[in-house]
């Protein structure tokens, strides 16, 4: 891929100066810790500028969540036909109830469960342990929700500290209930961010789910699994049809609007196509090693990347699929161009800064560029080295790269770079809107979406235009 041409006003020097100035406000120890996480982009250099996946520096106001958030919120919550039990005190389950927008089909409370199930730990549970209670509540849940295809137990901090053995309980209850009962030791204190929660969840799937079921119909040559799409605002429903129009047979989805037994049967597919590399690459590798299933990354944000991805995926199959892939691209290019024609004139030359999780800090860049918007800075809440390696080439030289950015740092960066839009999370949203800077929540699509696929691009373009061109911003500065 050709290196991007530099963005006007953005130079390595200016960026490094900004970083230095920002760090200078911190205590020495914090400076030392934070410095490696901030850098100016070098597209050419393979190994990227910044360190990642390190402990949060205490007190700096990180935007990170915890392992439980990564497990309950990201991986497990979206599986629609499972009763997901937040095992421990009341809070975690409540805060993560309906706040990620992983949409699901089915009848709530009957065949899908967008509810908050919790053991609501009390003092006595801490003192005497919660295993008995867990056993009982799993029974109660199965009785009240007989059509659930499984139950997951997601540990909150106390569980791991008081030495409960949820694995023994789930093992026993899986026998008793005759359906999948999965333990996930995702206590919030484990690891440095959501990321370990993803990994622990991958482990749970590896150890307690995959291989336990098989599809009803015989495997076919075009069977694939859609990995790492969490159906935020309906993303899966905009992405899956494209793969199907290509002639592929999407047998299971990990995990947006997903079904646990189909996930358990995924070892039968021919190819895993993965969108969110960060949260799911481990299971792809497991399936590759154990069952020889190849996997491929793709990007369904914006027509340019979508077309690239369709061709790359099609390349893994025969000519039928390749042809159909081209047909799909042709079919939608008109619509995509119409969207660009409508919005690009109003957005050309604008700049944006991003700070999100998973794949978006790099994957969405192309979609912005399709609309004429340049990204002057980007970063991840919980990325690893390999994420940044994949990011460098997507960004222009000298642009800002920030890992686990603190509120203090991000404010300074935005103040200096003055982007026309900031795309980040709910905690950051109003900080920047108060400053009169257009903002979109890019974890939740700001209550809009889908943003994946061609349908999603149309909505993405509308939303970005709405945010940047809303006349309300002209009202911010008072004439008196």
């Amino acid at each position, binding site marked *: 891929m050709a290196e991007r041409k530099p963005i006007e006003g953005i130079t390595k020097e200016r960026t490094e100066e900004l970083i230095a100035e920002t760090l200078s*406000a*911190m*205590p020495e*120890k914090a400076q030392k810790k934070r410095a490696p996480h901030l850098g100016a982009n070098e597209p050419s250099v393979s190994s990227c500028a910044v360190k990642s996946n390190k402990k*949060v*520096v*205490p*007190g*700096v*106001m*990180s935007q*990170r969540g*915890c392992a439980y*958030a990564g497990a309950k919120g990201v991986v497990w919550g979206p599986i629609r036909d499972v009763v997901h039990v937040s095992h421990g*005190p*009341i*809070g*975690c*389950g*409540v*805060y993560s109830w309906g*706040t990620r927008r992983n949409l699901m089909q089915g*009848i709530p409370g009957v*065949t899908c469960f967008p*509810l*908050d*199930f919790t*053991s*609501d730990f*009390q*003092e006595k549970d801490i003192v005497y342990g919660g295993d008995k209670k*867990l056993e*009982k*509540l799993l029974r*109660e*849940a199965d009785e*009240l929700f007989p*059509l659930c295809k499984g139950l997951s137990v997601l540990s909150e901090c*106390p569980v791991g*500290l008081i030495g409960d053995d949820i694995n023994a309980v789930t*093992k026993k209850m899986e*026998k008793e209930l*005759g359906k999948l009962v999965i333990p996930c030791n995702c206590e*919030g204190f484990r*690891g440095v961010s*959501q990321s370990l929660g993803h990994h622990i969840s991958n482990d749970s799937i590896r150890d307690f789910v995959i*291989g*336990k*079921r*098989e599809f009803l119909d015989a495997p076919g040559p075009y069977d694939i699994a859609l990995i790492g799409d969490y159906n935020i605002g309906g993303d899966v429903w905009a992405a899956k049809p494209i793969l199907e129009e290509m002639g592929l047979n999407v047998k299971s989805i990990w995990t947006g609007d997903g079904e646990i037994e189909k996930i358990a049967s995924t070892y039968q597919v021919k190819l895993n196509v993965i969108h969110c590399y960060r949260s799911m690459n481990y299971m792809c590798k497991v399936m590759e090693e154990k069952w020889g299933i190849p996997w491929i990354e793709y990007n369904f944000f914006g027509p340019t990347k979508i077309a690239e991805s369709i061709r790359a995926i099609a390349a893994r199959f025969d000519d039928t699929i390749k042809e159909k892939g081209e047909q799909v691209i042709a079919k939608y290019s008109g619509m995509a161009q119409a969207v660009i024609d409508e919005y690009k004139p109003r957005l050309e030359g604008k700049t944006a800064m991003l700070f999100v999780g998973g794949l978006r800090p790099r994957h969405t860049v192309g979609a912005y560029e399709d609309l004429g918007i340049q990204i002057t800075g980007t970063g991840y809440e919980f990325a690893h080295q390999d994420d940044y390696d994949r990011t460098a080439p997507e960004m222009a030289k000298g642009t800002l790269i920030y890992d686990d950015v*603190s509120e*203090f740092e991000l404010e300074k960066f935005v103040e200096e770079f003055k982007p026309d839009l900031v795309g980040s999370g*709910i*905690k950051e949203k*109003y*900080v920047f809107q*108060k400053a*009169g800077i257009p903002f979109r929540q890019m974890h939740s699509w700001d209550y809009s979406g889908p943003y994946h696929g061609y349908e999603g691009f149309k909505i993405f373009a509308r939303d970005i235009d709405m945010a940047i061109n809303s006349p309300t911003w002209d009202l*911010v*500065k008072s004439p008196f």
Partner: protein
Amino acid sequence: MSEVAVRPLTEHSPEEIERVKNWINTEEYKEKNFAREALVINPAHACQPLGAQMVAHGFEGSLPFVHGSQGCASYFRSTFSRHFREPAAATADAMTEDGAVFGGQNNLHEGLENAYTLYKPKLMPIYTTCMPEVIGDDLNAFIRNAKNKGVIPEDLPTPYANTPSFNGTHIHGYDSMLNAILKYLTEGQKVEGKCTGKLNLIPGFDGNTGNLREYKKYLEAMDIPYTMMADITDVFDSVCDGEYRMYPGGTKLEDAAESINGKATISLMKWSTTNTMRMIESEFSGEKVIMPLPMGIKKTDAFLMKLSELFDKPIPQSLKDERGRAVDAMTDAHQYIHGKKFAVAGDPDYLLGIVSFLLEMGAIPYHIVCSRSNKKFAKEMQALLDTSPLYGSQGSVHVNKDLWHMRSLCMTDPVDAIIGDTHCKWVARDAKIPHFRIGFPVMDRVNIHRTPVIGYQGAINFLTVIANKFLDIKDETCEDQWFEMMR
């Protein structure tokens, strides 16, 4: 069977699905549901540290500091930002595994130093989440050590509260943190015989900044000097003028310190200020009064009369007129609400206020659900219902029952509407009835937190939303022959 055996996918027939779909709406299901002993489903309450953080936001230059995992802090901040659509700056010392082994002192010290250096707070209220509570960190010692080591200045106020999530709810965390801050700031400030002449007003855990502004309006109208405790008004209803301010408001620290010499202290939420008021009872000078959340006319009357009595100030004509207009609105609109049945869920103090208002309108508080409280509250609610034989007698109080219980109640014994926070929307949808949002959190509508529901104007606001929604439904669902110009 063994869980390792590979099985084909399970499939449910459409009939089976239909059966269960109907079954969960039955009396039989309700009984099973109410027989639950271990599982909690869709609770209408959160954990202590969230409440503690609300208090911590409510003081001048205050930076809430979570001793625990950063994930906790992120959850609290997100919750406040979704409800108020405002920033909620708070930090954490990001404890991890090793904390379990060595305790959280190192994280705390590093966190305090960084937070203080970067964000220059005037106050750093510290509160705990599960981990340090389970491992038993000695916050008192840790903080002392921090100051001894010079990590933070000796004179930086650092009140702390133990707010275990496995105990009580957000309203108890509110109580503990407020208690801690006031104790800390007022320590040694008491001067015998001194009286600031001011009222200390404690609104309690209230996600409605409009309510707080309304209290201030009353006090200013009555010319009563006051200090509002944990005043989140300008913190969570701040201006948008092109400048982000990390500390846009809050109770002035000197005022809080001086509050111990106040003329009187009023708490408007008994249930979220129990310990605080106990402390104030013993430490503060002046009168101490606990009053109900002033929803509806009578409780507002009582509040104003108490203010008038305590400060020997007349209730001004402007408020008399406001009362008269509120009563006018209620008499004019009673026919649209009278006799309607409501299911209500929320915190104890709010529930008592909502039920008072409904009874004054001739509505019927029917299913009253508090997902975490106690018998004493149940008795208080029952006593309130008993004050209105005609409209209160049908109400049933369900304590420590969650919103999945409420669903069973509404599906088996229907009501006309639901009043409660956003989480109630699922029941409202299944019951196909309107949902009037109130309380905390409300994350699916705008400006609910800006619209007062207390006081006279609050009564007008709340009945307007309710009456007009019922009229919307009539206009939207009636057949042509019943569609009319006037309602």
